């Protein structure tokens, strides 16, 4: 399986996002660099609206990710509730 990744800026807004991605994707591996974090995951990685909303105590819109995203890899499947990266190989 190839690895997908998502890279995010590290700031106060992304702290709960990173936390819930790591909780929802136990196979994901965080790699920290100055000012950013890259989260690698075998095959697929899912960001869940509900988990983030729960952590921040308000309704989170997954498109808010756009403000903090640095980069990603893999095909994307996006709905109101989940944002998934995956490779088919």
């Amino acid at each position, binding site marked *: 399986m190839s690895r997908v990744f998502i890279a995010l800026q590290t700031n106060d807004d992304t702290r709960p996002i990173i936390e819930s991605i790591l909780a929802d994707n136990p196979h994901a591996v965080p790699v920290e660099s100055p*000012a950013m974090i890259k989260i690698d995951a075998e095959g697929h990685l899912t960001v869940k609206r509900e988990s983030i909303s729960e952590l921040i105590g308000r309704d989170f819109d997954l*498109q808010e990710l*756009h403000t903090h995203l640095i980069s990603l*890899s893999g095909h994307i499947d996006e709905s109101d509730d989940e944002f998934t990266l995956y490779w088919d190989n």
Partner: protein
Amino acid sequence: MDMQVPKKKLGLKERYTLMTRDLAWDTTYQPKEKVYPYADYEGIRIHDWDKWEDPFRLTMDAYWKYQAEKERKLYAIIDAYSQSNGHLGVTDARYLNAIKIFLTAVTPLEHMAHRGFAHAGRAFPGAGARVACQMQAIDEMRHAQTQIHSLSNYNKYYNGFHDFTHMYDRVWYLSVPKSFFDDAITAGPFEFMVAVGFSFEYVLTNLLFVPFVSGAAYNGDMGTMTFGFSAQSDEARHMTLGLECIKFILEQDPANLPIVQRWIDKWCWRGVRLLSIVAMMMDYMLPKRVMSWKEAWEIYFEENGGALFKDLARYGIKMPACAEQIRLEKDHLSHQVWATFYNYGGATDFHTWMPTEDEMQWLSQKYPDTFDTYYRPRFEFWREQQEKGNRFYNQTLPMLCQTCQIPMLFTEPGDPTKICYRERTYKGNKYHFCSDHCQHIFDNEPEKYVQAWLPVNQIYQGNCFPEGTDPSAPGFDPLAAVLEYYRLNIGRDNGEFEGSEDHRNFEAWRGMAKRND
């Protein structure tokens, strides 16, 4: 009284359909081929534009909302950075030379990308593709503007930042990025998308914006970090567009495969050659280093690009033919390019220098198979000579590759001691190339590349002197005239970093920042 029934909120997919596809219309009083005259000539066959899927499903209203938020954040930080004299917090004034390259070589490309995507968006008959290209065109304009605004702060204090738009069209090393993008935007809309949307954005742009911008943060450059990451937040969407575009073209008709493969081969190679300057920025110009060029290459090209091409194999797409040569070059690239700019440091708008012993040790450790054998002896010799007041400058202009326009500095694949020479005669004229891949690109479209504006050849034709110059006047100094044509301040912008005005000022100002005298 009627009960107020809350309207059911539309889902993301429905919203996207309503706000994108449903806003498009079919032409009635003009035939479609007249409205979209560039849709067919490249040979790409599209049967059903409705099959275009935009995975991000970003609609224009949401787009404005998030972009506005990004801008507000960015400008708050830029203001704070300049108000607090943030420039004195960078690790070392040498670092700023990398940022000068960014402004002269990258920012104008953002503007060209804006033009390219605006054109591609106009040329595609499908609504999904048009909206995505339109957003990207606006993004690219934003990137150019935010970079100019952020870096204008440095222009107040340091040399070489003063005239980047003038330089972009003239200075020898800037013909490399310029010709890259001119090549892309003069191609048709499909080739442009494969060139910039896919090959550059998806496969290569991470190497510029991710480790280098993280490096800017590491070196205390909050300005570059902020515009870099702000630009990169759009990049994720651009990459997705590039990938989507490739999949769409390949799924539409099997006859598209060989055309797309040829474009991927061409543009991955052109992109790799373009990024050779970033290799040197990462390994030589960041005083504090996040990772080596080679490590970044392995993560973002070999691993990430490998996964991508494995995935595209189902369409018959193969890893670009140049991948093997690129693998061999990763141990040499940054050293060879830095040596080249050290050679011609008299004719650049930024300073060059030899690495310190500590830095050479880092290079030895990161490049154990090559640095000590091939590059350290040269660099130590140069450093000794510079300390003796005999700093090396190459006195003669270099031979350039007809396709990538880079000096012929690259060595034979597998033999780092021999320059790689390739040549071709076309319609009675001779053309030279740095590699098989640059030659193949020429062979596929010679009528395009015979027109290359090669800076060295232009200088020798007398086309790079200020207006009114008389080259036959007694005591005419051609090099000085060329630098004047570049609007480069000789002795301030160019040459050795040690002892330069930037070096002296930075030391003095940083001293003042810590004391009250």
